[in-house]
């Protein structure tokens, strides 16, 4: 588990926008090395994005793989290389939606199933926390995870993009294809729901 917190600053280190576009163009022409560079740049963010939406690392791994396989096969159809990042997130989001629909159709684990836990593999190992606080932290993480799972999918994806992927609302509209007002409203509702879940938890604690 990495110690890098979610929602890192919007100004990312790495290649400049122009360099990134060049990498995308070369990957479009068939350069496998450049495709791997794109994977190295974006895969972790995509993996975490998918994980937040589906709540399972196994599913997140499969879906991340499917996302990048689709990127590899469809990359030539991307008309504007500068929009690669939004296009990538759209593919990832669509893969998640398809997975969720398949699960619901086959009556497998539902997206709202109580047994699916985001955080049962993530004990907080910080040496500064005493065991009781570690348990508290774990419980709170579970509460947040459940609150995310309980959100309608259309609130969940914009909320995850805004809070955990640190994406601007304008960029989010390019990913989800909804208006700015719709995105703002859905993020607001998602925050209220998550906040309410956290409040309920803290009220129950002695």
């Amino acid at each position, binding site marked *: *588990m*990495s*110690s*890098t*917190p*979610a*929602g890192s600053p*919007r100004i990312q280190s790495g290649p400049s926008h122009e360099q990134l576009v060049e990498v995308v163009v070369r990957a479009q022409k068939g350069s*496998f090395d450049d495709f*791997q560079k794109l*994977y190295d740049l974006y*895969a*972790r963010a995509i*993996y*975490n994005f998918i*994980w937040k939406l589906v709540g399972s*690392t196994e599913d*997140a*791994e499969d879906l*991340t*793989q499917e996302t*990048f*396989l689709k990127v*590899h096969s469809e990359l*030539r*159809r991307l008309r504007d290389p500068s929009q690669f990042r939004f296009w990538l997130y759209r593919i990832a989001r669509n893969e998640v939606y398809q997975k969720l629909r398949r699960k619901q159709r086959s009556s497998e684990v539902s997206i709202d199933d109580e047994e699916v836990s985001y955080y049962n593999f993530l004990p907080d190992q910080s040496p500064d926390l005493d065991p009781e606080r570690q348990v508290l932290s774990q419980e*709170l*993480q579970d509460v*947040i995870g459940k609150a995310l799972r309980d959100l309608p999918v259309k609130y969940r994806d914009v909320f995850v993009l*805004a*809070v*955990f992927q640190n994406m*601007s*609302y*304008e960029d989010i509209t390019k990913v989800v294809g909804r208006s700015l007002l719709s995105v*703002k*409203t859905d*993020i*607001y509702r998602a*925050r209220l729901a*998550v*906040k309410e879940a*956290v409040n309920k938890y803290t009220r129950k604690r002695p």
Partner: protein
Amino acid sequence: MNCRKMRTDIIALLDESLGEVPASRIRQHLQSCPACFHFYEEQRNLDRLLKSEPQLDLPVRIWEGIESRLLSRPAPAPPLRWFGALFEWANFRYAFASAILLVIVSVAVFRVTVTPRPEDEQLLAEIRAYQVEVLGNPFLKEIGRENPFYAFGLRGGKNPFNSVRSTK
């Protein structure tokens, strides 16, 4: 100011997705409205809580799976040099086919309408000869004026395709 309506903008301010002018307006409002300021503080604390959660590391097996699946795929057929590469360009393909079709149709229409066929040229020569003959004969000229072919500009007026015509 309607505080309820401003809540979405307060969230947008937290998410750094508000323009400078509305952001400045919100900040001013927060300084004067305790309820909205309390809401802002609550959401900011929630933000800190959410963003303190660490991200997962990327499992190596994801790339290994991608690599093995891509390398096991059959290699695509090489493009046909520059023309094949051009033809593979998805958008250009359809435009190119349409342009070819347009050129073919244009040439065909041009040849049919502008350039007479040899048999048509012969017919035209006969019509011209007939016109000269009619023009030169005042009696036939009189008949020509009552003939419907006169309306189409044939000065002789007589239908050159009919061998017998009734006259006045």
